[in-house]
């Protein structure tokens, strides 16, 4: 009798563990669709591109476009702004990486690797702290100390190359993928 009982016990244990494991795997598999449905749908993934005519933008001016639902800064920099961006030592920056989608991830944040054509700085207008749109700095209405942008949400300051210089934001403003079609037309995305 004792042998039978312990035998039955082992078989029962096995069935119990096996059924439990299959059930657990099944529960996770069943949960996945309900989790994944929250990720961007195929519609949202079909990313768009935007073509921008640059002729209307004056030196020293920035125009904000909408790209993939978010603001895109296109800034025509003055020679003084380009100079001040070039004068900075990359190693002294809080974020030394270029964050340029057109270059390898390891590219450094030299001004030439932030703006392929020095006159045109094209960056996403999304503060890398918590996503606000930073305010542009002009000689008439300065925003922050570095001549680029100031994010009013929590005080992050960017320079004329869109690099983070001060405040809580961890990264430089992102440079989106773009190509110049002609000297005055650029395709973003």
């Amino acid at each position, binding site marked *: 009798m004792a042998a039978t009982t312990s035998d039955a016990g082992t078989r029962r244990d096995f069935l119990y563990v096996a059924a439990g494991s299959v059930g657990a795997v099944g529960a996770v598999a069943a949960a996945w669709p309900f989790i994944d449905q*929250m*990720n*961007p*749908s195929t519609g*949202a993934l079909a990313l768009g591109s935007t073509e921008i005519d640059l002729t209307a933008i004056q030196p020293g001016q920035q125009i*904000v476009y*909408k790209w*993939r*639902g*978010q*603001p895109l800064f296109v800034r025509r920099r003055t020679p003084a702004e380009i100079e001040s961006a070039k004068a900075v030592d990359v190693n002294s920056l809080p974020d030394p990486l270029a964050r340029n989608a057109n270059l390898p991830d390891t590219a450094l944040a030299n001004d030439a690797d932030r703006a392929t054509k020095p006159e045109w700085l094209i960056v996403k*207008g*999304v503060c890398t*702290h*918590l*996503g*606000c*749109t930073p*305010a542009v700095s002009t000689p008439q209405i300065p925003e922050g100390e570095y001549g680029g942008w100031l994010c*009013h*949400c*929590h*005080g992050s300051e960017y320079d004329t190359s869109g690099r983070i210089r001060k*405040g*809580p*934001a*961890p990264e430089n403003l992102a440079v989106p993928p773009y190509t110049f079609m002609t000297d005055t037309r650029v395709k973003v995305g």
Partner: protein
Amino acid sequence: MSGPSTYNPQSGLERWIDARLPLPRLLHDTVHTFPTPRNLNIWYTFGGILAFCLGVQIITGITLAMHYVANANLAFNSVETIMRDVNYGWLIRYIHANGASMFFLAVYIHMFRGLYYGSYKAPRELLWIIGVLIYLLMMATAFFGYVLPWGQMSFWGATVITNLFSAIPVVGNHIATWLWGDFAVGDATLNRFFSLHYLLPFIIAGVVVLHIWALHVPGNNNPLGIDVKSPQDTVPFHPYYTVKDAFYLVLFVIFFAGFVFYSPDFFGNPDNYQPANPLVTPPEIVPEWYLLPFYAMLRSIPNKLLGVIVMGGAIVTLVFIPWLDTSRVRSCRFRPLMKQFFWGLVVCCVLLGYCGAQSVDAVKFGIPMVWVARIASIYYFAFFWLIMPIIGLIETPKKLPASIAQSVLGDKAGAPAE
């Protein structure tokens, strides 16, 4: 809900029901005869007020949802339609919007009450932790609700708060995208927030049942913080506390109605009467007042990840309070040192709230507000993690009264309660 029952079914029908589904017994024991300390003061009426607030939010919310449209192109106008065209829509929306503020006002009073009288101490640790959970759920619900009108503050508040998750190393950006259902806050985000805003209040209602269950096992704490020792220390919940709660509820409703009818946008932000614009952030992003202290902590730290950790830590800290307080005495009435540090905490929380409402670089009375926020944040954490454990060990508490009855009735103790 627990303990021996005093229910005595009178009629045949009551006995018939009692043998099948003893719901009347449950209600009788929970809200009728439940023995309650006889010395509960005004600060103990906020539990009932909170239940009222939840009911108000659910009733006004469900009626708003009959007219509201959760679509990024239509949401703002549907709220304007509620305000202008729907019969009494203005009233229902103003009750709902101000109701959220009243709810938080009540919960903050309720929580500071618990801190002052040591209501988190054994055997009420789980009661306290369930309370913290309700507070978290309330913050999530109110945050989702604030997004729904799809004004400028709705949109940018949602952007900033959901971006907090992007601070998490490695997976942070994936979590943010998963929350948005897109690569930025948009229509997909609005829809799911509406779904969750509808769901969470009912989850809260369920957790409130657990909260009351966990209250009715050890029973109420009281302003003296000493245990109930004999039936003389208590009175039945009804009519003593039903009447007391109802009286203060009426005063609360008058206060509440004052805002709804005379200053309905007092707690609101004018920027939220502008439709959401993903290209322009308003010059000042301010959360609702009840989140300002946490927001001030976030802003006082010039590092993204650290800021988020500190902000989250401020809330998580609350869970550990039952074990951080080493004192044997519950109530601050008998803790001369702790009482002072407690009021220090209240002042710091108010200061943090004030700083959170200022711009980042604000300087008041020659003092940069960001430094005030830093010092107040340090005090907040020091209070729980250093002051609480140390004071409990070194402080000499005042002498505790022999019993609740003796403290309340003096020499008359021993005479039966009338």
